[in-house]
């Protein structure tokens, strides 16, 4: 598999991103918006349709529901209340807020700390790496999933996936 559009080392190589998306299932989305047409909703709708367990975290919506799921105030509350352990923390917040979120992610023992497009915080990245967990920054979970499982193919994007192996059945995404 080839790497295309690797803008910085914070994205991890494609094989590592592929492994993350095939290993883990429960994703806490920090900063998931209640606006159905916000970018974060696009990701949540897509990932949920593809079998991931989405856990909304958004203090301004705590106690309400987003996409039919209960919203938690922070990662600690989400971890305590959600029936399954949170494996990936996916951040839709500005870069300067990321360090505090990373500390919480380590507190709840999340395996992957993932920040969306444009969200970069080197200090937080180092902290998470030092704790032995995986970090991805400046990447979108949804786009990466679509890269490996066919969605990007439908719109002519260069997935970097070159293989003679049979494709998986058409994804629901």
């Amino acid at each position, binding site marked *: 598999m080839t790497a295309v559009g690797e803008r910085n080392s914070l994205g991890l190589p494609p094989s590592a991103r592929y492994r993350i998306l095939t290993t883990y299932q429960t994703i806490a989305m920090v900063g998931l918006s209640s606006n159905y047409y916000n970018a974060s909703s696009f990701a949540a709708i897509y990932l949920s349709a593809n079998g991931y367990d989405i856990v909304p975290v958004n203090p301004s919506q705590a106690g309400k529901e987003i996409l039919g799921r209960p919203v938690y105030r922070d990662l600690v509350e989400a971890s305590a209340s959600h029936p399954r352990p949170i494996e990936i923390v996916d951040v839709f917040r500005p870069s300067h807020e990321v360090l505090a979120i990373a500390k919480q992610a380590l507190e709840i023992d999340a395996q992957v700390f993932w920040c969306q497009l444009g969200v970069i915080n080197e200090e937080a990245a180092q902290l998470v790496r030092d704790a032995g967990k995986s970090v991805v920054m400046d990447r979108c979970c949804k786009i990466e999933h679509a890269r490996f499982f066919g969605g990007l193919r439908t*719109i002519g994007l260069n997935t970097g996936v070159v293989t003679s192996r049979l494709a998986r059945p058409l994804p629901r995404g």
Partner: protein
Amino acid sequence: MDDRQFGIDTLAVHAGQRPDPVTGSRAVPIYQTGAYVFEDTNHAANLFALQRFGNVYSRIMNPTVAVFEERVAALENGIGAVATSSGQSGQHLALFTLMEQGDEFVASRSLYGGSFQQFDVSFRKVGINARFVDGTDLRQWKAAVTPQTKAFYAEVLGNPTIDLIDIEPLADLAHEVGVPLIIDNTFASPYLCRPLDWGADIVLHSATKFICGHGTALGGVIIDSGRFPWDNGKFPGMTEPSKGYHDLRFFEYFGDFSWLLKCRAEMLRDYGPMMTPFTAWLMLQGLETLHVRMDRHVRNAQVVAEFLDQHPDVEYVNYPGLANNAYHELAAKYMPKGPGSIFTFGIKGGREAGRKFIEAVQLFSHLANVGDAKSLVIHPASTTHQQLSAEELRAARIGPEMIRVSIGIEGVDDILWDLDQALAAARRPGALDAVPFHNASGHSIMSKAFGAPFQA
């Protein structure tokens, strides 16, 4: 799954396709369908709002076309591609994705005549204004920039005088100004030159040429590097809410592929010049041998250019592969495998000699195309560039003596033979010998010479 960067020859054969999971088909299937069944109403709504990826309607996407798009994107080292019905429609979509009424772009004057007309006549009608410059003079590019400038545009090898664009400094200037550099890479193909690797932001092709390779279908393709910072303040269409999609902001939502998605979801949807699945399939057949054909194209072209350069009936040859060409060093930098197989030469004796030459060729085909496996010839001043005024022709350095050839992949000795005999015929005074070109039933007598099932 290991990380390996495959070479361009391998990508030409494989990129963009995984064998079909249902049938196991190794060849790319032709998905000859207009539309695609939704799972349920929710799925349909999500697809229409761009919240999920999937096939909706073949004007906007098609699985066969998508394989072609991804393969070309891989060959150009781009983030993705949008295929169109022709090279002209590709230019149209790419430039209209960037511009609104009142905007401008700067373009090299050394362009295909059809492109020049598109920019100079049709685009002006809707208030999108090109400023033409001498593509080799950076000062002219800089002087033509205004606050409305939204792009720089040039052909990698200008048609037909084969002026080579120095991509790196032009890309630097474009980025200093804050606009993308668009390069039409048709005459080089991604095998000979990858403009995105030299700093260009968007690459276009008339896929009809080397990509298709056999003159069997028309098509275009737009490739994006995914690197341009669309949030630099000059492209509100990328950062402000889109009226067509629930106020979605393309750059924020889709990051590096947002420009291509806007091109597809707005421009291709609204103007409609998509590539058909059958055309995409023909293009894919072409791409699988791109590297093999191009090696032969440039090898033949070099031999032919050297032959013409020494020929007493030839005034000049515009081929950057020749050491005496002004672009020889640039060509060695940007196209080390060879500067394509399309070039021009001047025949002694001007327009009349040119006419006789074209009437006398027997293997070359006289037609308005380039980049075919077959050798082709045309007289630009009276055909591809005939809409240009005398002054514009002079500015584009297209004289009445100029003949354009596209050297094919036939045996090079046969190509040289044909040129030599046609040059000799052009030199002879008076009308050409009356050649009995057709038999009584209208078949070309040449068909017998080339082994066709000719019956007297």
